[in-house]
């Protein structure tokens, strides 16, 4: 039987006295489009950082593509495409330079990295901005660059933190189509997003995390079996159903 793309067991991450992730269990099947949802501060970003190798778990086990993390980190990383938050981009490189850099870091030779970089720039409609530094890009353009960098080595697993944040409609559509295509070829996509409509339309599996633990997990079909929308389900399971108090001075 093929190992899952992501298998997380009793994952914990404690900062001082606060557990950002508190005994998280998760299994993401290969070839799935997995939505990892939760309110702000639920532990999504910490979890994805641990999966990316940016943070070391306090306890628990992580397996990616059947390999233990961090023991086989180098091997695992070569099969992963990342769309992290913006902090991992290099502001003083142009998009073409950054894509070439990323390709070479993923062990493509220089010529191939440059070729693929040029093709990806064209695909993401960044060809008019060759001389522009990433630092001068808008938020949406930066996301496009990050997405292009994630694709350059044709990874088997995509880890994405809010990939559609700040991206315009055309860019978002392109990214969605590309990701769906990747899933069709057998890759796995694991993404966090606050845009539930996007998750509802793209993802076939969803997990909702709250206070560092998974509070609901299942296929999209299972979640849709009731009358509730994903938004209703989300609000119900994270316990956020309360009337908004009105501020008198704001009236």
């Amino acid at each position, binding site marked *: 039987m093929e190992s899952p793309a992501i298998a997380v067991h009793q994952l914990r991450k404690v900062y001082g006295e606060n557990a950002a992730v508190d005994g998280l269990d998760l299994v993401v099947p290969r070839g799935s489009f997995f939505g990892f949802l939760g309110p702000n501060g639920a532990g999504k970003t910490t979890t994805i*950082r641990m999966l990316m190798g940016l943070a070391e778990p306090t306890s628990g086990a992580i397996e990616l593509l059947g390999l233990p993390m961090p023991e086989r980190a180098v091997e695992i990383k070569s099969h992963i495409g990342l769309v992290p938050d913006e902090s991992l981009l*290099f502001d003083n490189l142009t998009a073409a330079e950054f894509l070439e850099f990323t390709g070479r*870091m993923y062990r493509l030779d220089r010529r191939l990295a440059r070729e693929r970089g040029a093709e990806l720039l064209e695909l993401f409609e960044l060809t008019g901005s060759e001389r522009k530094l990433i630092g001068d890009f808008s938020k949406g353009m930066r996301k496009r660059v990050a997405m292009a960098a994630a694709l350059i080595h044709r990874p088997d697993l995509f880890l994405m933190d809010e990939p559609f944040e700040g991206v315009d409609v055309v860019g978002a559509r392109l990214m969605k189509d590309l990701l769906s295509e990747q899933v069709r070829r057998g890759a796995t996509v694991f993404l966090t997003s606050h845009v539930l409509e996007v998750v509802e339309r793209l993802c076939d599996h969803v997990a909702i995390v709250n206070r560092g633990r998974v509070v609901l997990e299942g296929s999209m079909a299972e979640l849709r079996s009731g009358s509730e929308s994903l938004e209703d389900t989300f609000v119900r399971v994270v316990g956020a159903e309360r009337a908004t108090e009105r501020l008198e001075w704001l009236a």
Partner: protein
Amino acid sequence: MKSAAGATRNQVGAIVQAYWRCTWNRLPRITKGNVAVAILLGVLWYGLFVTIAFGAAALASAPGSVPVLPYVFAAGLMIAFIYWQVVPLLIASTGSSLELPKLIVYPVPPRSLFGIEVLLRTSSGVEILIVIAGASIGCLLNPKLPRWSPAGFLLFVIFNILLAAGMRDLLTRLLARRRIREMAIFFFVLMAALPQMSVFLARNRHLKAAITQIPVWFFPWTAAARIASGIGGVVAWIVICAWIVAAYLFGRWQFDRSLREVELSRPQLEAAGARRTFAWLLSWPSSMFRDPLGALAEKELRVLARAPRFRLAFIMGFSFGLMVFIPIAFQDPSGSWLRQNFLAIAMVYAVLLLADVLYWNIFGVDRAAAQSYFVYPPPVRSVIFAKNVATAFFTAIDASIVLIICLLIRIPVRPVQAAEAVCICVLIAVWLLAIGNLVSAYSPRAADLSQAFRRTSGVKVQWVGFLGFLVAGVPVSLAYLARFALDTELAFFATMAFMLAIGGYVWWLSVETAARVLSERREASLAALSRVGTPISS
């Protein structure tokens, strides 16, 4: 795809190339004047060491100097060791290093990253490398020395960069942790000042005896010097190789630990802790100044108090200065200049350490807030004024702590000495504020205050600091000159008062000028402050 070795070389090449591209891409944004100044300062600074290198080469190549070479080389290499390992600690700067949080996501074997990191340690000792290169060429030219003699220098350099890599990782990691950072600082302060303190106190004879009885051949600089002088012997080779192995194991161990502990969110948590500790102490500006100045100054105090870089500079300001200068001063005769002025020196040293964070780059230290200065209603002038208030406050606290510690440990301080030291400190601070405002407005640069140690050791930064202190030191020098010429304390204090009045006016002009420059160049300034992100930070 490539073979494993080829792929790793490709990755290392990509990191280095990306670094150079980042540096190159920044160039068009730097004005011609800045480039010219940077080149001039670079020529002056490195020219100095090239001159020393020529001297070293001349000495090493002279056949007649062979008998003294073991002693000269040993002393020189010990100074090189101190420059490489201790000076970065003294000036809270560690040179260029890999941006691990940006690189750790890629499939690069840790040993490759370690290799690059080790090579980057040369950035904190370029000057030493220049001098050692001169000495090595001299050895090669000396007909009385064997051809392999420069190997001693090579092995010494390898030892130093491996040790520097380990020390940097250890310090950076320790100082990133709020609860043990201050303890770690004091530990390293003690380590650095221990020899002087033991001599100064002269109480622990066993310790002194132990230090003096360490066999000379045991030290890496002695072993390297013996090899470089052509009288190596097996012991010298074994000793220096053993030091290299130990430094490698230490460096690798520390690097692996840093790699495991790379996390991006720690500063946020630190801020949460700091909020509780300093809340009551830092709210005074709001009760002293009307808003917006009160709010702006309070914000500055809070931001700085939570910044690891500032806290390190602040603590080192009063601790290191005293621990280093007091033993030196009190070894001198009672009437010596050093002994008479140790308090002023210790206070000025505290200001010097604070300058990088508080004076030279007032907008870079909280660069995330820079945009808001142009968006909020208060004029930029108020922002600069508030930043200066924060600077003055922390400088005064640091200098006061120096004075209080002196009184607590019963170091004889006469009232006139204390008054003189305080006046010098105030005068230098006022002039530095004026220069700093202008430098900050004309040349803002992004700084990362979450890093306890400054990573840059750029020539321009060093020279701006050096020239700034030189200019700020002129008024004080004039006061000393007045006292020397007229032989009266009154002349000294009168000149100080006059210079303070001029300094105050210059400071006021600097606030106005800096505000105007920032408003005129707001786009370029914001771009300079927002730009971060290279595989190697420098």
